[in-house]
């Protein structure tokens, strides 16, 4: 599968490095091309990793392993694609028996609830029976938001009263999932900053409650990151993986001009696969992650008018 939407955008773009090199003219010096490279990497939110990549590229150039700056685009594309993993095969494999439980977590406003809705639609399209749990009992009208989405998708929702213990909602939802023998239970949660230890403990408790009802649950814990976030995304990934066993990432809001380069740092440090990307606010705007396409988009520059 490819990022249809991204691909569409890509057709109008070309590789930024190639572009920058061309702009610099025929006999670009190593220093000049490294400078161009630096800007490309940092402005794509690649962060501290950019320093390493630049040092490596310089070594390659000076050591003669790259014939010249012209080979930089291909070299970099290879390096970057190796840093981030996509799902190997099915991004959401189901258990042979009993409901597969997917817990969705992330900081405030990253795109969790919308991703739950998109995932429900995606699963339903492939023929799975889905139940959704409204685990955000904190934010105003969070349940209402999810109820509207579930109505649009046509899946059932388990919700509690506003202010209720989210773990209790998770508990009820797990029971309902068993009772109705659904294939997948998707659990939305309230946004929480990874620095708030009480809220991280609450998230951990939601996971434990699910595990008590359904063996091995949650089978997937997906961290939703906002593609417009900078280096803080790495800190989010570190802290969330400490609190709950995160199995993968969803990179939301990649439909803008943000490159989401922070996931490269996360990929290389935490080895977390990116499973899906969010490409808009509609139900169908979810696609399976593909490292090569992601890197192409990251290195792409808009065609000058």
């Amino acid at each position, binding site marked *: 599968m490819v990022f249809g939407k991204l691909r569409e955008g890509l057709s109008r773009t070309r590789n930024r490095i190639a572009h920058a090199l061309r702009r610099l003219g025929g006999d670009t010096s190593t220093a000049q091309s490294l400078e161009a490279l630096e800007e490309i990497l940092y402005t794509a939110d690649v962060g501290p990793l950019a320093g390493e990549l630049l040092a490596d590229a310089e070594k390659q150039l000076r050591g003669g392993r790259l014939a010249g700056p012209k080979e930089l685009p291909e070299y970099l594309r290879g390096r970057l694609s190796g840093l981030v993993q996509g799902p190997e095969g099915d991004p959401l494999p189901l258990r042979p028996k009993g409901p597969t439980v997917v817990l969705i977590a992330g900081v405030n406003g990253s795109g969790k609830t919308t991703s739950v809705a998109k995932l429900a639609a995606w699963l339903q399209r492939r023929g799975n029976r889905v139940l959704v749990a409204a685990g955000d009992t904190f934010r105003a009208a969070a349940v209402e938001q999810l109820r*509207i989405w579930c109505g649009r998708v046509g899946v059932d929702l388990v919700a509690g009263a506003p202010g209720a213990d989210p773990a209790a909602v998770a508990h009820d939802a797990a029971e309902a999932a068993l009772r109705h023998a659904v294939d997948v239970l998707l659990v939305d949660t309230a946004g929480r900053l990874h620095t708030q230890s009480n809220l991280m403990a609450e998230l951990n408790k939601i996971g434990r409650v699910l595990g008590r009802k359904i063996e091995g649950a949650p089978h997937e814990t997906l961290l939703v990151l906002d593609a417009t976030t900078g280096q803080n995304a790495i800190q989010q990934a570190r802290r969330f993986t400490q609190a709950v066993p995160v199995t993968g990432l969803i990179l939301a*809001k990649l439909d803008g001009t943000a490159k989401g380069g922070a996931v490269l740092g996360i990929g290389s440090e935490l080895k977390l696969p990116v499973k899906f990307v969010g490409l808009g606010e509609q139900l169908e705007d979810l696609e399976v992650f593909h490292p090569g396409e992601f890197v192409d988009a990251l290195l792409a520059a808009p065609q000058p008018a």
Partner: protein
Amino acid sequence: MLDNLTQRLGKVLDRFRGPGRLTPEQVQEGLREVRRALLEADVHFQVAKNFTERVGQRLLGDERIQGVSGAQQVIHAFHQELTALMLGDRPALPKNTRHPMVLLLAGLQGSGKTTTTAKLGLWLRQRQSRKVLLAACDLQRPAAVEQLVTLGKQLELDVYAETPGPGVDAPGVARRALERARSGRYDILLVDSAGRLHVDQPLMEEIAAVAVQVQPDAIYLVLDAMTGQDALESAKAFAERLDLYGIILTKLDGDARGGAALSVREVTGKAVCFAGVGEKASDLEEFHAERLASRILDMGDVVSLVEKAQEAVEEEAAEQDYARLLEGKFSLEDLLKQLRALQKMGPLKKVFGMLPGAGRMSGLLEHMDEKELRRMQAVLLSMTPRERLHPDRLDGSRKRRIARGSGAQVSDVNRLLHSFFAMQKQMKQLSRMLQGGASRKRLMQQLGDPGRMNDLPGGFPGRPGRPKGR
């Protein structure tokens, strides 16, 4: 927040700590590292570049200050440039507006617009006793209207809302909300809007149309503090499309490294006016560039400290205390009050973190931990109020009684008194310097300038050779 950037900058600054002059090579080398540190803290690429160039010019050019060591020179340059980077030329709220005043909030998806609309409503009602109406103009996100209505109920703020459906568009709702605000004699109309990408042409046109309908006195861009490079580009696009008044930075309660805070003024031309520091409606603060600059350089923040203390003690009592302090009257009674306030302010280490030269000013408080603080308080409490007001009258037998009553030694009592008298002397000096005429605000301003604080008392105003702060 900012810890990482502070550490990185701290390391670079340490290299400059030597007493001598800096060579241009040293400066260049240091600046390269500073630039990396800024980039890794999400400072916008171009801003990081310009910033280091400006600091470089200061350090190598004619703006060097004579007779000041390398390290001070560097810190001074950084502090001024950091402050300048963020400093705005407008108050947080527009002045001399029409009635009702109309404020519009715009921004990317999930940045915090709706929450901030409610927070700002509460802030305006509580701090300025204004009658506020909120308008729910996000018709895109499911239950966005419901979200604002719920927040309004929780905070007892009126909300103008329509049920989303065919024929109901944001500019229309905004216009009708303004009519309601006029007929209902509201002072302020706060307009929430849908999140949108700057490249989404139809939605950018929609928000422009909302602005046309309500002619806002101020449009704020709501920006997530964890924002990376591209979101700053989008902030620029918002600024080009809408006549922004200022920025509201949200989620500063996290551990974002501050790149957005440092970059947004230079990128958009508009300064940060307010800061969101939590999910609760009361978690909104006015933004202070100078304070953040001080904190980034880890030089402490006297102004914040004083404000915290102010919250801990009662406002009026504090007012009196300061008046007394300024008159050079400072008794053990005051000391006790201050100690109590200190304790309410949280972990001492954190409090001292905010005190640059203040530790020196009140030599008493230096090197003191919680335990010591409690011991001191016990000694003070063991005195009668009269004794606290006239410590000079304490004789041997009184001291023994006080020591017994607090489980301390007479030497502890003496030590406390000794420090106290030293402190009292300093306070008197300070008040003489201010000649009793300075307002508390001015005193705090002077205390708040770490550059001056470092050479207290000689560096106080009037001393020649020191540059004026911006």
